[in-house]
């Protein structure tokens, strides 16, 4: 089975799969958190991820603020944008069918992507790696920056999961999801919690964007092409399950990488094939707790 497939190729694609999987995991986790509390499918997630990368690029090229500064500043800026967006766009339509949330965030995506493309063109902008070099493991060359991305995003995923599933704050969030009136009657400001949750999810997307800038090129469409995969990931994992989103994200990244090694023609398709199979075999989602949710 391994005939003709070098260990270098295999490990190289595994690493790429793990990197892609890290981004799938972080973004689908953010999407799942937002959906869990607001029942809004945040189509703008990809655009907000792209904004994070663009802000990092702008910080470096106009203010001379390096990657590590951008890693803090960009997510905060994107989160602030999220607060404004939640207040102006999502809150007024919260009482409507949740389809409108998806459509409104889609409209915002068109605006953001269009403006960025108008200003900076559609070709990718380079962002050099903040940690150049790497280590030769004998069977492959591992760039330091890629190792950093895998470790950092893994820590972010675990931390966020812990925050939501195992802390008091997370318990409020989950309770507000089940029954906002009762949580409100305990004196918790649910609308503010919704705004902050949205900002947090969006900030995560911005942070992923900064992480992605040195790996993928910074371009206006970097988010929407990723968004399609993220939708598939969330559908496979089951909506609203945070751990499900994380695990499915990593799993699909690796599966995609392996497909590139063993059957390259299907690499684009494999995630969607898995989604269709998952819908047929397990309609409620791989990791969904609720039947038919």
């Amino acid at each position: 089975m391994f005939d003709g497939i070098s260990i270098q190729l295999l490990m190289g694609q595994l690493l790429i799969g793990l990197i892609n999987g890290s981004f799938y995991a972080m973004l689908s986790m953010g999407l799942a958190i937002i959906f869990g509390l607001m029942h809004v499918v945040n189509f703008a997630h990809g655009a907000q991820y792209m904004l994070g990368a663009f802000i990092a690029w702008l910080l470096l090229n106009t203010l001379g603020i390096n990657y590590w500064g951008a890693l803090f500043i960009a997510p905060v800026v994107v989160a602030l944008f999220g607060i404004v967006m939640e207040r102006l766009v999502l809150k007024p339509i919260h009482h409507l069918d949740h389809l409108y949330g998806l459509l409104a965030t889609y409209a915002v995506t068109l605006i953001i992507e269009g403006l960025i493309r108008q200003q900076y063109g559609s070709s990718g902008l380079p962002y050099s790696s903040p940690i150049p070099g790497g280590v030769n493991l004998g069977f492959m060359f591992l760039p330091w920056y890629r190792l950093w991305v895998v470790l950092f995003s893994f820590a972010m995923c675990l931390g966020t999961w812990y925050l939501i599933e195992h802390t008091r704050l997370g318990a409020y969030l989950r309770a507000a999801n089940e029954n906002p009136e009762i949580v409100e009657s305990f004196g918790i400001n649910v609308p503010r919690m919704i705004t902050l949750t949205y900002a947090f999810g969006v900030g995560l997307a911005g942070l992923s964007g900064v992480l992605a800038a040195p790996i993928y090129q910074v371009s206006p469409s970097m988010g929407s092409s990723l968004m399609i995969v993220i939708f598939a990931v969330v559908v496979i994992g089951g909506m609203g399950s945070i751990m499900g989103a994380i695990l499915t994200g990593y799993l699909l990244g690796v599966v995609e990488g392996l497909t590139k090694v063993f059957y390259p023609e299907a690499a684009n398709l494999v995630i969607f094939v898995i989604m269709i199979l998952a819908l047929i075999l397990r309609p409620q989602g791989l990791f969904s707790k609720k039947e038919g949710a």
Partner: protein
Amino acid sequence: MSRYLGLAAILVLALIAPFFVYSVTLMTILVFVIFASSFNLLLGYVGLLSFGQAMFFGAAAYITGHILKTTGVSLEIALLGGTLVGAVMGFLVGLVAVRRSGIQFAMITFAIAQFVYFLLLQSEFTGGEDGMQRIPRTEIFGFIDLSDNFAFYYFVLAVTVLSIAFFYRVVHSPFGEVLKAIRDNEPRVESLGFKPDRYKLVAMTLSAGMAGLAGGLKATVFQFATLTDVSWHVSGEVIFMTLLGGLGTLTGPMVGAGIVIGLNDHLAQFGEWALISQGVILLAVILFFRRGVVGELGAFVRRYKAGGRK
């Protein structure tokens, strides 16, 4: 009564329009009238948001083009082929997608549409990135020559009128009543002994078939088919048209298609501003005018009449 007057006025306008406006632009509008109506059948009448309607449109454009390029059958057979392929795809996608309700239906159709996009990109017959060029426009019924755009316009118009009549029949049939009931209260429909999933599946098949017809027409109007026709931008554009025109009304998609194609024509020279303005208008429609142009006009007329009686 006033509705029939309105439709008659639109029809008269459509009949004389090619004397004043470039007929290819008009045919584009008609193609998108059918396409937007197919989308409207799902979202406006069943409450299903198909975020991948372009897969039926684009795939049918390729299939129709392929039939015309390789067989030389008369035009209506090729269009029928495209329609059929659209319908079969709609049935298959429906089998998978109606398993999840509400918002997930949108995400699943969106993802499957991308799957279809990649499939078509990698297929030999589509010409990949280059698209399918020089699709011949054969004679209709084997003897009516429509290579001239002016004459072809009237054929496209006839197909559009028939399509609208079809949508009207579907929506105003007992079947259509069940669809609307599913949109308004699915559990209740289920408790009455209907099987909502089956109705959704049929609606999906019909809608996708009509989207396929629109795609086939598009391929014969422009005589080419490209990957753009399958892309999510086209799926989004048809959503925009329907919401702008008026969701859940038969005239809404017509008005929406007319406005959007006209807008695109005028804004084409301003590059990205066409897409940006689409986003801004769509957002305004969602936030402030959810009934769309037709719905808001209707409400205004009703208010005016009610005020006049006082």
